[in-house]
């Protein structure tokens, strides 16, 4: 232990000395803006002959009309169901014949197409990717099929207490913002969506001037640029400006909701609005979240699981997105112990704001958050997802380095201050799903 500490001190000193030259470290990816506005990101990882490609469009659920929840996700999932050149089954057969995958979908903020392909089949993979993004035909039969499948999947997801609780909590935390609606939609909202809605949503929001394309793997920057320009260079940007999304208003008085299900275990979910990476308090909040309920050394894990034997899963986490963020605490416990778990969660949240975390806890959290970063970037797919994420959130490609620097500077006083601000139990909405009276 002693040795470890002194090593860290030496490292901290070195950090201070070498900080100015650290900029010379190779950036995580090459970035350039193509003539039509596409941001192209390329990371060369030559060792394994595979390539991961991502396209990201600012075409998420936040842009749906309020009565058309699920439109973005539906549009995304229909991209691979037919293009000007190929039917859906032809696309499936073509990509799977070479052992590759091409998946499309949309979440709250964006619509993505993901390609994973052997290097030797990159040309084919990019051809198909460009087709599905630029010239999807949204055939009527495919539209009807996908609506029915999505409605069935939503019905089935009602079996999963975590999903049920998450949907209810989003509605409570973001009552007046698109984040309050389920991105997959509801059985009813999907019933209202027409094929024309899908065509229009794609036309308006999938556009080069807000698009990001990341190419990661066994390619060079020149090769990636050439291949992307050949397929996406002629994509013209529309004359209308991209649509703006307002920030959410306050969520109002915290509410509690109980959803009855005939289950042996109850799922608890607490949540409130919080902050995203652009707020300086984001970094102390990340440390606070880790101490409270991040890993198996966290306070909630210790009291609820290790000592209490009350739950298999208990977590606290911040959940940042492009337009807003939420903080959540979750646990699942046998029905009879719900009051006790609620009490422990409230106590521990309050204690985080009342007294400073110990030096040991602070150090563990910071060392983990900083030291585990390489594990988040150890495959081409993970690197591609990461660089698209930081670019789409406007965080900059040096975010990984800045993140580590900011986390390293967090003090126990910082943690206590943000905990007092964000962990007060009285400010949390609460959902319980289970066999409660």
């Amino acid at each position, binding site marked *: 232990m002693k040795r470890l500490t002194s090593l860290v001190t030496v490292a901290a000193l070195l950090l201070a000395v070498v900080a100015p030259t650290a900029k010379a470290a190779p950036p995580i990816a090459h970035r350039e803006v193509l003539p039509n506005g596409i941001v192209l990101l390329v990371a060369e990882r030559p060792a394994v002959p595979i390539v991961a490609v991502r396209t990201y469009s600012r075409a998420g659920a936040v842009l749906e009309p309020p009565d058309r929840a699920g439109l973005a996700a539906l549009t995304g999932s229909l991209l691979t169901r037919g293009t000007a050149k190929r039917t859906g089954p032809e696309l499936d057969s073509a990509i799977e014949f070479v052992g590759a995958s091409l998946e499309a979908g949309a979440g709250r903020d964006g619509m993505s197409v993901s390609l994973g392909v052997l290097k030797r089949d990159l040309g084919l993979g990019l051809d198909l990717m460009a087709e599905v993004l630029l010239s999807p035909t949204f055939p009527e039969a495919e539209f009807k099929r996908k609506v029915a499948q999505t409605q069935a999947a939503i019905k089935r997801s009602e079996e999963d207490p975590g999903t049920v609780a998450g949907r209810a909590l989003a509605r409570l935390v973001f009552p007046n913002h698109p984040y309050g609606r389920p991105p997959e939609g509801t059985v009813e909202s999907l019933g209202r969506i027409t094929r024309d809605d899908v065509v229009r949503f794609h036309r308006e929001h999938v556009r080069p001037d807000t698009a990001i394309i990341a190419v990661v793997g066994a390619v060079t920057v020149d090769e990636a640029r050439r291949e992307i320009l050949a397929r996406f260079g002629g994509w013209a940007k529309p004359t209308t400006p991209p649509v703006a999304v307002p920030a959410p208003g306050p969520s109002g008085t915290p509410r509690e909701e109980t959803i009855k299900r005939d289950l042996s275990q109850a799922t608890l979910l607490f949540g409130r609005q919080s902050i995203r990476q652009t707020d300086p308090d984001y970094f102390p909040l990340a440390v606070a979240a880790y101490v409270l309920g991040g890993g198996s050394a966290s306070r909630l894990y210790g009291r609820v699981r290790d000592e209490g034997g009350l739950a298999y*899963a208990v977590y606290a986490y911040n959940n940042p997105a492009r337009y807003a963020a939420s903080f959540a605490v979750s646990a699942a416990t046998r029905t009879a112990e719900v009051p006790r778990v609620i009490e422990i969660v409230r106590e521990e949240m309050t204690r985080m704001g009342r007294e400073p975390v110990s030096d040991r806890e602070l150090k563990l959290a910071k060392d983990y958050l900083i030291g585990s970063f390489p594990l988040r970037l150890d495959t081409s797919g993970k690197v591609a997802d990461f660089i698209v994420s930081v670019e789409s959130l406007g965080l900059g490609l040096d975010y990984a380095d800045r993140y580590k620097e900011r986390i390293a500077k967090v003090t126990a006083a910082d943690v206590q201050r943000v905990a007092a601000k964000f962990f007060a139990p009285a400010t949390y909405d609460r959902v319980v799903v289970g066999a409660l009276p």
Partner: protein
Amino acid sequence: MRRALFIVVLLAWLAGPVHAQSTDGVVATTLDNGLRVLLLEDHRSPIVSFQMWYRVGSRNEQRGATGIAHFLEHLMFKGTPTYGPRQFAQLVEQNGGQDNAFTSQDVTSYYVNIASDKINLVIDLEADRMHNLLLDPREINSEREVVIEERRTRTEDDPGGFLGEEVSSLAFKAHPYQSPIIGWMEDVKRITPEEIRAFYKTYYVPNNAILVAVGDFKAPEVLERVKARFGAIASAPAPPPMLAVEPVQNGERRVRVSKEAQLPIVYLGYHVPTYKSDDAPALELLSTILSSGRASRIYRRLVYERQLALEAGGDYSYFSFDPPLFWFWGTPMPGQTPETMEKALTEEMERLKTEPVTDEELTRARNQTEASFVFQEDSVHRRAALLARFELIGGYAGKDKFLDRLRGVTAADVQRVARTYFTDDKKNVGVLIPRP
């Protein structure tokens, strides 16, 4: 911190591209105490995946003590005299690592993925808990409640998990594959600390374990440390062999359960042989043909064309130690009945018997399998797990032979295995009916 990282990145850069696509380069050795060690250098990222695989799972359990292997997996994180309760996780996390474990019917596996300069810490921790586990009765009782909660999440409150348990216990009468990995609830509640200790002493011995590490290290240095730490652990008598053999099934078995759920579920399980059989490659390829991707047979026919199923597929476990079930499953779309679902799955099976699969299907399935191996090369964690998987069934280098076996499969082979194994006398059916 940052400087150290920068140097490592630079060194990897200077070293140039690493060509490590085959199992060449694996340093394989068996220590005097029987511990099998597989080390593979991979210098692309400054990380390592360190994994311990024990040849013990639910197949090694006795009636009345089901779930003991999985229970013990939880307790492996509850401390030794050197590293107290919770210290394993704390040490791993404060060194930026991620750890977890899983138990299957055949094996129990532990992994730590961590910055490669921390590998010595992990070697020390894993060697220590192989033979010094505390197994404090108080910790055991507290963890028992956690396992019970896990069972509620996975089985009691999960329709698919619940039905799977019912079908397995129906399909196997003599073989321990009949019981759930997590154990029957009453057994989990009952198992004593003494039984757990005895189970630990029997199976957590060097001659019953495989150590695999893949990552940014020098194999000779790691081997030296492994020898120093694990080499000191005494060899033990070979764990008792699992002798149960499932008798031949004579006639269809069927179970219907009712459970709070939104949609019905249908499972079909057919008794099939292990990887040792000449039929295994055809079964493996068939499972890919049936359900890998949207062009696969069951997806294309039942989900896409006929729109009978929300999801459906078929699966064979090539790595199973003992003869497993070939599973078919389907969740009918709202408005469709489980009877229709079962009939449609059975029709697909019958079609396999009467019409040979196409060349395109065979080639696609082979290409998918081969490509998946290349994709797995990108992750040190998956590389290590794959080495272990093949080592467990006869040798880490078996991957190449596996691909050769798949290449040899013909349409006639697929037809033959379908005719041989998808018969009524090997059939086990489970249907879950949603309770209103």
